[in-house]
């Protein structure tokens, strides 16, 4: 199966600041990919590089086997719903659909009409008069009716209330079953992505911290709690993601493919949210290691 997105040493610099650096990932097709990280971590930069709205400073990126925005065929294959699901406030719902039909090679007019009807949107309604949830659904409809092989959504539900969030995700997930396409969507909240994604990318401080199938990530990360112990006394195949220590106790989040036999540890699994937080917390590992050495 071809990769939906492949990046090698990908980087983007604005002036002296790196928005994204040394990004190497390979995402197989057929997944709903969650891109998660704090605001300003580089999520939007990566998504704009993937859709060809930005050119890389270093490295390369291939999307569905082609160069992002490299010609009509490539543009037709990739849909992009920008941050906060923007629509044209002055245009009506029907105008948006006409625009979609004009601009897209593979426009699915029947699907667009059917979706708009099911959502209960009046075609004559101006987009500026729609609620936030309705605007998001209109933007999603345009993205879906384009019939892309990959649909990229940048923080699509960030500004929506819980009900609109759920309805948006329901519509998106239902469409993935009907039309088999890959999805990459970003959020700064794991809870938005937890149920919908089967592939996760965590990005912090302009760098990809971890990427992989969520099932596999959950099966290889553990929390160890036990008597205080220095990180250099952990087995070599246990990679420390985060650590915290008290006078007597140590708590580690580790990644390992091997079973953990050490009876001194209480071993528990992690929720996806805890896993992501551990990676976000990663910088503190170095700091705390220093503190630990000082105390000895």
């Amino acid at each position, binding site marked *: 199966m071809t990769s939906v997105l492949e990046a090698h040493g990908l980087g983007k610099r604005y002036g002296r600041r790196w928005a994204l650096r040394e990004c190497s990932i390979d995402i197989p097709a057929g997944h*709903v990919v969650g891109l998660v990280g704090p605001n300003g971590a580089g999520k939007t930069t990566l998504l704009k590089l993937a859709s060809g709205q930005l050119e890389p400073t270093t490295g390369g990126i291939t999307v569905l086997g082609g160069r992002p925005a490299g010609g009509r065929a490539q543009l037709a294959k990739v849909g992009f719903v920008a941050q906060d699901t923007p629509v044209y406030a002055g245009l009506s719902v029907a105008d948006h659909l006409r625009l979609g039909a004009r601009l897209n090679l593979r426009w699915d007019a029947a699907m667009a009409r059917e979706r708009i009807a099911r959502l209960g949107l009046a075609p004559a309604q101006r987009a500026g008069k729609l609620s936030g949830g309705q605007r998001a659904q209109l933007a999603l409809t345009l993205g879906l009716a384009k019939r892309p092989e990959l649909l990229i959504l940048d923080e699509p539900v960030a500004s929506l209330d819980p009900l609109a969030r*759920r309805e948006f*995700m*329901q*519509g*998106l*997930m*239902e469409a*993935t*079953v*009907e039309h088999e396409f890959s999805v990459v969507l970003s959020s700064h909240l794991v809870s938005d992505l937890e*149920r*919908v*994604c*089967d592939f996760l990318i965590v990005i912090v401080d302009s760098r990809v911290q971890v990427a992989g199938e969520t099932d596999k990530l*959950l099966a290889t990360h553990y929390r160890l709690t036990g008597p205080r112990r220095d990180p250099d006394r952990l087995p070599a195949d246990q990679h420390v993601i985060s650590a915290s220590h008290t006078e007597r106790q140590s708590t580690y989040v580790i990644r390992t493919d091997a079973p953990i036999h050490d009876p001194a540890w209480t071993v528990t699994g992690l*929720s996806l949210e805890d896993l992501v937080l551990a990676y976000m917390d990663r910088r503190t590992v170095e700091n705390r290691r220093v503190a630990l050495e000082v105390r000895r």
Partner: protein
Amino acid sequence: MEISVIEFHLDAKSGLSPYLQLVQQVRHALRLGMLREGDQLPTVKEVVAQLAINANTVLKAYRELEHEGLVAARPGVGTFVTATLTDTSLAAHGPLRLELRRWLAKARRAGLDDESIEALFMTTFRTAAEEDIA
């Protein structure tokens, strides 16, 4: 479209992965007789649209149930219940519950509180399960 016999729901606080929650809910419905042989499970699309979850989660749950011999997929039609869980196991519940009650009474007499009882049960349960695997 046929109306589904059962509807799934997910509990975010259960600690169980969504796919296991779906598996459990089918087993539960089978045990209670809410699902019977020949009944159709909700289609993948229905579950996905209702719960806003990844399609692979539903597919994984249905595969697991198929592996257990509880359901069978008919390509292009849907997934159907092929077995029942009510007959043999339900009859055993009564005597087992009685024994468990006696054991609980014994544990309380020995001075264990609710939390200690639960901890003891869970560790024993886990150890036994691990020994079965080994």
